[in-house]
Every structure is written in C-alpha cells, then in structure tokens.
C-alpha cells in the first residue's frame, strides 16, 4: 500500500491518509478482505504519530471502508451500494473529462456537447 504524506499541505495528515486509502479502494487497488497494515506499523513506516493513523483508521471504519478485528488487524470492508455508486461516479467523471477534452480539441462547445448527450440519452 502506497501512501505519500505531504507535510506542508493544509490538509491534515490523517485526512491525507484516509483520502489515499479511499482512492485505493475505489480504484480497486485494494480489494474486499485485503489486509491493511496495523495503525502502529503504518505510523512507524510514515514517521508520524500513532494517534494520527488511529484517527485515520477510525474515520475509514466509520465510513465503512475498512473494519478491524482485535488481535487480527484491519481489512478492507465489503463495499456497500453507496460506495459502489461513488466508485462508478468517479469513473463517469473521468470518462466525461475525456469527452470534454476531446470536444475541446475539435472546438465543440459545451452546448453542442449537451445537445449530443440529450440525443444519445433519448435513444
């Protein structure tokens, strides 16, 4: 699991961790049931305090991305509908960004693009 901490970022370190683990799960790099490092090991590896990784894991648990079993460790949770939706939305956003980029290349305006989308949706 790759996590990069940006020390001079305004975003708190625990948030950087939660966001990066979330993205790995949503991108499918981390799959249901995968073991993630213990918060103490992660703290050591990232050279940050235990309470920071603890907070990150607590937030991830609350949001249903991971679960922990005492004495066994933390695992990627079964993904619920909301998460799958979020995952799909992310993919759609990426695809749309590509569409927009392609449209720009040939000078297609946003209005024309919307019309095209409407026509295709009605089919």
């Amino acid at each position: 699991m790759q996590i990069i901490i940006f020390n001079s970022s305004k975003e708190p370190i625990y948030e950087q961790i939660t966001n990066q683990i979330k993205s790995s799960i949503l991108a499918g790099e981390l799959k249901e049931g995968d073991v993630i490092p213990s918060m103490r090991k992660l703290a050591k590896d990232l050279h940050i305090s235990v309470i920071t990784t603890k907070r990150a894991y607590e937030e991830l648990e609350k949001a249903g991305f991971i679960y922990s079993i005492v004495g066994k460790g933390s695992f990627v949770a079964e993904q619920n509908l909301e998460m799958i939706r979020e995952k799909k939305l992310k993919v759609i956003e990426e695809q749309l960004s590509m569409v927009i980029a392609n449209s720009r290349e040939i000078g297609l305006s946003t209005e024309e693009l919307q019309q095209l989308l409407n026509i295709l949706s009605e089919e």
Partner: protein
Amino acid sequence: MENVVELKNVTKKFKGFSVENIDLQVKKGFVTGFIGANGAGKSTTIKMIMNLLKPDTGEIKIFGLDYQTHEKEIKERIGFVYDGNVFFEGLNLKDIKRIVAPAYKHWDDTLFEQFVDQFELPLNKAIKTFSKGMQMKASLAIALSHHAELIIMDEPTAGLDPIFRRELLNLLQEFMVDGNRTIFFSTHITTDLDRIADYIAFLQRGELVFNQSIHDVAENYALVKGRVELLDRDTEKAFVHIHRAPTGFEALTNNVNAVNNTFGNSVVIERASLEDIMYYMKGRESYV
C-alpha cells in the same frame, strides 16, 4: 483508556519554586511529550514520577500501583533515560552492564548486545571518554534492555546532532509498534514532538496548562494576524496573548471557532506550532 502514569493533585514546594496541583495522566500505548520553559518544573515532575523526589501532597500511581507498596515492581517495568551521565565516569559499559543487569528480572543480554552493536558503542572504554551523543546512546541501550513497558526520558535529544536525533525517533517509533508500550519524555526540541508525540503535556511555572492530543492542540490553538483596528476590549477576549506592531497584530487563540465567529475573513488564521504556543503563553505571564 488506560493510564500508565497518574498524578492527582500533586504539589511539591521548594524555596522560591514549586510544582502545584498537578493532575497528569499518561495514556498507555501512546507517546506523551512534556514541554515547558527552563525552570517550569519538568524535571521535578519527572523525578516525582520516578520516586526520586516525594511529593508534599497528592497521589502518584504508576501502572495503577503506588511506590509505598510496589516500588520494586514499578521500577522493574520502567526504562529511565536521564539528561547527562548518571553512571560512575571511570567505568566502562561492560562494568556498568554487570552492575545494572542483576537489578532487573527481565534483563536481556542479547538485546543489550544488539543495541551496543547498533549504536556502535565501545564496551571497554571508560564512559568519561564518550561524547555527549555516545553517553545518551549508552543510557538508552541500558534503559531499553530489560523489556520496559514505560520509557521515561528527561531531555533525551538535548545536545544531540540531528542525525542521531532522527535515529532515536525511529528507534522509539519501532518500540511503539507494540501497543502495550508507553513513552513519556520532556524536550525543548518541539519538532521532535511533531513527528512522534500523540499527546502534549505543557507545564508552565509549576502548573499544567494542558494535556491534550496533538489533534486537539491543532484544532484549538492558532495564530491570528490582522489589522490593529480590529482589536477592542470585546474582540480581544478571543486571544490568549496579543503582540501589536505598527504593521498589525499577531495573537494566539485557544478557541479558533470564536475567532472565526468574531473576525470572519478579516484576519489570517495560521497553524500554531508548539513553539508559538509556548512563546505566547510566556508573553501572557509578563502582563500578570
């Protein structure tokens, strides 16, 4: 959460100096950094935790036990690193080990040799020939070799070069991977704490100002900068201490929400470092 160290209403008075009504808890499995200016009472507090000084009043419990009935058991479970050499200078590390090891039931020779190796310490040279950094490494090797659950250190990084300071922090983080271990250490070098501390206990003039998690400190305290005309008797209440200059004011708040509500976007709010907090709190004193 379990407390490894618990001070209740502890007071110790000396001529012209005292530590008063200290309520301090050190949480199991975490690193607590102990900060405060010179003479704030940090060493006195640590000596009381180590039973090297007896409090005048109040109660001290370590691992839930008190020193009157369980001194040996408590000491067995603590590794203590003191600023400066506490060993007889003429001795070498081998002799010191021979004296110290039998005092601990769980002394681990293999572990000790491992640290001696890792720290590149000579076994046969007198301690007095050691540099400051080597003396600290020797103290650490001895403190860490009996499987202590609680490591107490008084200014462990003072006088050490940045490379060894970082190595020491790595070593302490490795030590903390086992969740049953606890570290309590005093320091002036607050950047050490930014990296490994979970809780910060701040002592000022013999009184504990706060003992909070680093997240609480970061969420409550902030530096605020703005134009002087924003300040009046009411708006000033949001601040712990204010520095005024012809170019504007700079102030410390311990209530970021209140500042947001009072000033909105008319001021700049920045993260306050532990040094900022210590400095502004000190400034407040001089006005009293």
